[in-house]
């Protein structure tokens, strides 16, 4: 039975913006000319309204697709950049996925291994139950730092359980070593990293091969059988070096997505695993390893079920959904690295009434409206009386989630007056396919490209930062399909 435990489904998400590394290098050349050597390719850049939660949720939606969600027993959310220290971040994702309250949930954090540790724990704990592991990362980096070049924002999600996994777990092994290649203390926004040569020689090259060796021994597999080796590392030639030392074929070493996405931290091993699963065929063996105060190593064997998986965005689709961004100051502003004159309209304090949010959590976090039992009219939000004038039935509505329903633009504007961190603010009336409508903020739109009739889909995003209280208000926005 143990062999039947594995990955049932997978998904990924990358923010649409891709900051050009040459823009970073050009802007900082006066101060850090050495960055020019890293000025190749692009990195995924979160929009102002994205964080590790919104990205992980998108990956989770991609992973779950149209699957029945009632069978989910647990949700694990991994990140080193959870928006909340105390308010369960996984709980927000669970609510946005409308998973219901009968659910175990866990935030996993604390190292770059958080994603793989969550996955290994889920696989070990599953016992046949379905566990969703999602990881999202949105790390800050100081201007002109190598991290600013290397990092990217993104998320991945894997559904773990029994039955017909697309990839069966062959084994897992973890090493825990307090090797501090980099760290980020509480109340500090940025990573502090030690010398790369030391990290490479004393860290990666010693700890990771040891973990792989132990994994191979425990699972009875041969390193030569690995066809996909997923090993995130921002240092060059490290992954091939580890492969060589561990006896893994050179051709198995997978692209770290450095040129197209950047390193997405705790999410990255899972992102690379998803990318491998997208390309894998039955019988392939995928080794995923992560590094950070030790090493997690997991070995999977891809099964026939991989061919039957429904199409999804995953990593390839995420890489294809891109818009080049050459505006480095915009990146700085989105990450609050520069003090912008945001104007008096940005001063407003709307408060964050928690009891109001709780009472309406399905509506706000879950985008749940109503479907009238008397007349069939779907509507958002759900009122006590049905909105159809010929009906107006009282308390007649069942839950109607709108998050996965497509919509079309009915009217729109690009507003320069209202405060937006990324003006102009696009918003408009959208009509859901099959009924229901709402006045919605738009996100990830191109200037001048919005039209009446344009198909949209809903995305969970940051609506507003309540800076007076440090509270993040999330809601759903419409984005071009």
């Amino acid at each position: 039975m143990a062999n039947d435990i594995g990955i049932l489904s997978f998904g990924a998400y990358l923010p649409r913006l891709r900051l050009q590394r040459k823009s970073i290098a050009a802007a900082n050349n006066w101060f850090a000319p050495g960055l020019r050597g890293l000025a190749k390719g692009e990195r995924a850049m979160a929009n102002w309204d994205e964080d590790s939660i919104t990205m992980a949720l998108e990956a989770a939606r991609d992973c779950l697709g149209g699957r029945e969600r009632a069978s989910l027993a647990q949700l694990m959310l991994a990140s080193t950049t959870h928006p909340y220290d105390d308010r369960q971040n996984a709980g927000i994702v669970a609510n946005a996925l409308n998973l219901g309250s009968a659910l175990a949930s866990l935030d996993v954090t604390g190292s770059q291994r958080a994603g793989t540790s969550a996955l290994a724990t889920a696989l070990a704990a599953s016992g046949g139950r379905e566990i969703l592991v999602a990881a999202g990362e949105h790390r800050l980096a100081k201007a002109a730092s190598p991290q600013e070049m290397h990092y990217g924002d993104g998320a991945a999600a894997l559904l773990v359980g029994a039955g017909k996994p697309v990839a069966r777990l062959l084994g897992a092994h973890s090493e825990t070593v307090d090797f501090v290649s980099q760290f980020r203390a509480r109340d500090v926004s940025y990573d502090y990293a030690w010398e790369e040569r030391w990290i490479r020689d004393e860290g990666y090259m010693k700890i990771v091969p040891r973990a792989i060796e132990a994994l191979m021994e425990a699972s009875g597999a041969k390193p030569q059988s690995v066809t996909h080796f997923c090993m995130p590392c921002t240092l060059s030639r490290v992954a091939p070096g580890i492969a060589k030392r561990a006896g893994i074929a050179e051709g198995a070493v997978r692209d770290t997505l450095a040129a197209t996405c950047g390193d997405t931290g705790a999410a990255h091993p899972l992102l690379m695993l998803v990318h491998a699963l997208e390309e894998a065929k039955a019988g392939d063996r995928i080794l995923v390893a992560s590094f950070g105060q030790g090493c997690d190593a997991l070995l999977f064997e891809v099964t026939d079920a991989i061919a039957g998986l429904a199409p999804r965005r995953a990593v390839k689709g995420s890489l294809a959904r891109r818009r080049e961004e050459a505006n480095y100051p915009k990146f700085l502003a989105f990450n609050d690295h520069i003090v912008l004159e945001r104007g008096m309209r940005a001063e407003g304090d709307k408060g964050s009434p928690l009891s109001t949010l709780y009472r309406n959590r399905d509506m706000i976090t879950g985008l749940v409206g109503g479907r009238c039992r008397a007349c069939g009219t779907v509507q958002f939000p759900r009122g006590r009386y049905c909105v159809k004038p010929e009906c107006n039935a009282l308390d007649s509505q069942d839950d109607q989630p709108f998050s996965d329903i497509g919509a079309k633009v009915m009217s729109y504007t690009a507003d320069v007056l209202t405060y937006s961190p990324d003006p102009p603010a696009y918003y408009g009336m959208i009509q859901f396919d099959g009924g229901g409508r709402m006045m919605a903020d738009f996100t990830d739109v191109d200037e001048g490209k919005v039209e009446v009739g344009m198909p949209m889909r809903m995305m969970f995003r940051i609506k507003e930062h309540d800076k007076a209280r440090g509270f993040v208000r999330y809601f759903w926005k419409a984005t071009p399909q």
Partner: protein
Amino acid sequence: MATGIRDKVVILGMGCSKFGERWDRNAEDLMVEAFEEGLKDAGIGRHQIEAAWFGTAIEEQHVGKSGVPLAMTLRLPYIPVTRVENYCATGTEAFRGAVYAVASGAVDIALALGVEKLKDTGYGGLPQRGRGGLNNFFWANISAPGSFAQLAAAYRAKHGVNASDLKRAMAHISVKSHDNGAKNPKAHLRNRITEEDVLKAPMIADPLGLYDCCGVSDGSACAIVTTPDIARGLGKKDLVGVKAIQLAVSNGQEVQYDGWDGSYFATTRVAAKRAYKEAGIDNPRKSISMFEVHDCFSVTELVTVEDLGLSEEGKAIGDVLDGFYDASGKVPCQIDGGLKCFGHPIGASGLRMLYEMYLQLNGRAGERQHPDPVLGMTHNLGGFPSQNVSSISIVGRYGA
């Protein structure tokens, strides 16, 4: 069976402050300015006012809540004062309260006064304000221009109008209002503008540029109303009667149900039908002498002339460009300069519109005077195209 309000109540007197950036005046000063004029015009003393309605919308910017600021400022003698707020239709709501009080026979003389002091925010445009605890969690990040700008996208899609034709008609609307406002000493903006000025102005909310938006001003206006008999007893001749006051308020059909296409005001269409019926008007395009619409934005005026039944649906652009609504046209619109030139001190605007109709009907509009006005209509709208309060008042020669 209700018989409506037609000619049960007449306007005894009206007052209107100078609108504008009144940096040296408090809201209370503006209230007194309007009230002094109204009281003198009515020819009564304050002790003869038996009830008052006080309209103010963004009270946290100036006088605060309740009817107390009105009673305190005007030293009203312990009479009932009701503070009303109904989005930007607040001024008409105050008028409606006073008119209904007189019509009911509960009081002989009632006052409606609206005021707003908007120019103490430190920035242009309407003051930022919350939408309500739950609404703040899910309402889109809308501004007033951004919500009304969407009329243009939906109107174009529905009627197959290209962007530049629509923008040109919108420009004509603003040019016409500035021509009228230039002749009005109480208007805030008294400069003439050209179509080119409008088209070249900076964008506020696509496709509304700066000159497609009304001004933001401080101001106050008031009306004192009574019965025809009492007015005559006070020596008034050529009475201006209230013919209709109607209000239609969105119930969610536009923003939550599927019928509305975003290109018009569902409420205004309903309120207009009811108002014409109440006033006994069969053909408004023929019968209405002049009117003021809530031209917060040029596109609002454009679609509203259709909603009021003055232009056929889809034909407003033609009528506007033909000059049908110019001061010299068949049915002048914004003959005083409108919100465009007066700005929009929210609580005052509905009463300011009535003030112009009242002056015109009394032949006191100076160089703006319409040759032979019989019926004047005001349309005072609050909220957003997708959820709003639309009010329509018709006043005219008493008995006509």
